């Protein structure tokens, strides 16, 4: 907005009047009134014990739940990302069997609710009481009790990871397909095999499109882990619910859990911003700038 005076017809500087944004003031007043009123209702609510909220915020079980939630989120996201890239590459393969398998995987895991998958993995023992890994026709092998392997933690990781892979595969596929067809042709013309073209030319460029949504997937995962409470995964939500089932302070503990979820989301959002600033505009620095990616992805000396 201009603040410098404007010369009138005779050359005398005349100040510029200030614009009043009536709409903004009105909206702010209404928002403040409504939000303030709601906040007041909650804060002074006689049924809500803020002392309990403060007491449980740094409770040992809550903190260990926060840590388990982070663990499950990180491991499930890692599993989902690796498997997702694999499924996407299979989906785009010329081999119709591989492509069909990948399509089936995506359909199956997107078609069944995560909740169902979590409960399924947790109760795998009903189908297979023992997990056996052995060389066929011999006695050599390993055997586990399914219930010992499929704890709440592992079934949570598997269920969430396999599910994310199905969604992430579609993100990766979109990223790969967004890379110009001419890049593939140039790679082939140089004498590259399809696999090398994918690794050296296409995937590094697809990353630019793939990386920003991964931050989103992780943030979403942080909160999806709350479903794990149905299989008693000892995550934040499980522990919070176990506490409120014992002391009946449901609202207080939901507030405690929400505060921690919001803190985790805020941290993840901050990291996502850094990730996007680093890779969003230019995938190449991922290959060149050092770090894990530089070791995983090939590079030509520059």
């Amino acid at each position, binding site marked *: 907005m201009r603040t410098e005076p404007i010369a009138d017809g005779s050359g005398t500087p005349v100040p510029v009047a200030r614009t009043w944004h009536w709409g903004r003031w009105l909206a702010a007043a209404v928002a403040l009134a409504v939000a303030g009123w709601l906040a007041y209702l909650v804060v002074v609510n006689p049924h809500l014990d803020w002392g309990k909220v403060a007491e449980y915020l740094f409770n040992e079980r809550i903190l260990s739940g926060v840590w388990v939630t982070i663990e499950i989120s990180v491991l499930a996201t890692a599993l989902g990302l690796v498997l997702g890239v694999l499924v996407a590459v299979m989906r785009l393969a010329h081999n119709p069997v591989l492509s069909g398998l990948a399509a089936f995987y995506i359909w199956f895991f997107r078609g069944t609710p995560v909740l169902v998958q979590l409960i399924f993995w947790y109760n795998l023992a009903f189908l297979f009481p023992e997990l056996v890994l052995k060389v066929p026709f011999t006695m050599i092998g390993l055997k586990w009790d399914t219930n010992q392997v499929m704890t709440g933690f592992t079934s949570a990781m598997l269920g969430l990871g396999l599910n994310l892979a199905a969604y992430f595969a579609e993100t990766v596929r979109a990223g790969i397909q967004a890379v*110009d067809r*001419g*890049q593939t*042709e*140039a*790679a*082939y*013309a*140089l*004498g*590259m*095999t*399809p696999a*090398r073209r994918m690794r*050296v*030319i296409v995937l*590094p*460029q697809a990353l630019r499109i793939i990386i920003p949504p991964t931050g989103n997937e992780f943030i979403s995962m942080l909160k999806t882990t709350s479903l794990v409470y149905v299989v008693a995964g000892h995550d934040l939500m499980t522990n919070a619910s176990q506490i409120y089932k014992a002391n009946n302070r449901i609202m207080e503990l939901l507030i405690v859990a929400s505060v921690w979820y919001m803190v985790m989301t805020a941290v993840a959002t901050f990291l996502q911003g850094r990730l996007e600033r680093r890779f969003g505009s230019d*995938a*190449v620095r991922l*290959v060149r700038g050092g770090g894990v990616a530089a070791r995983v992805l*090939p590079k*030509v*000396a*520059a």
Partner: protein
Amino acid sequence: MNAGAAPAAVAPVVVATGVRMGYGGVQVLNGVDFTVASGEVSCVIGPSGSGKSTFLRCLNGLEPVLGGSLRVLGEEVGHTLRDGRYHPWTPKRFAAFRRNIGMVFQRFNLFAHQSALENVACGPVHVLGTPPDRARTLAMEHLDRVGLADHAHKRPHQLSGGQQQRVAIARALAMNPALMLFDEPTSALDPELVDEVLEVMKSLAAEGMTMVVVTHEIAFAREVGDRLAFFADGVVVEEGRPRELLAAPEHERTRAFLSSVLGAQEGPFER
């Protein structure tokens, strides 16, 4: 070329006999007969949709040949004769075959995530297994050759179209190809950038590189080409020495095409 002291009967680099190709019920090539001798520059002209680019892409196996015979560098493209049958190539076999054939595209197709130098070093490093340091030195020489040593560390989007196309030529040359294919290399360029690319191609031709050039630059074909083929409707309508063919085309199709193209073009080599 050099008809006088010809080295005794060098096998032609390209021999196409009745090559047919099509997709989705549309016939693109209807029996192309075409030969390229070693060291020769063959120019291909023709209206858009005549199949000239498709034919060029058949030469290095980017498009499949569906009928006839296409022998490039002594091999039937896409198939190997064994035990009385022609066996289709695997992707790996195709890759090995393409190492010896350089290709330059209309839209450059430089690897967008790599610098000019990395683009040129990419083939040697990832296909031939040249040590990166060595590949880098060689790449620098190739860039210098196309006059872009100063731009080695720039990315494709920081270069002009003409510069990008010269990097693309350097990238193809880095593989030491026995045959170079050019698919309308100057068609996507601003008019003032065309010459710098044509100059590089002329110097390549002067060094005796075997080249097949699909182009609309009639003047270039006249000046640099040893052979000129006119494509229309998926066949070679007529073929001959560029000066003769351009001066006195035999077919009505050729005459019509040339008059429409030459009317609009006043090339730098025109006299």
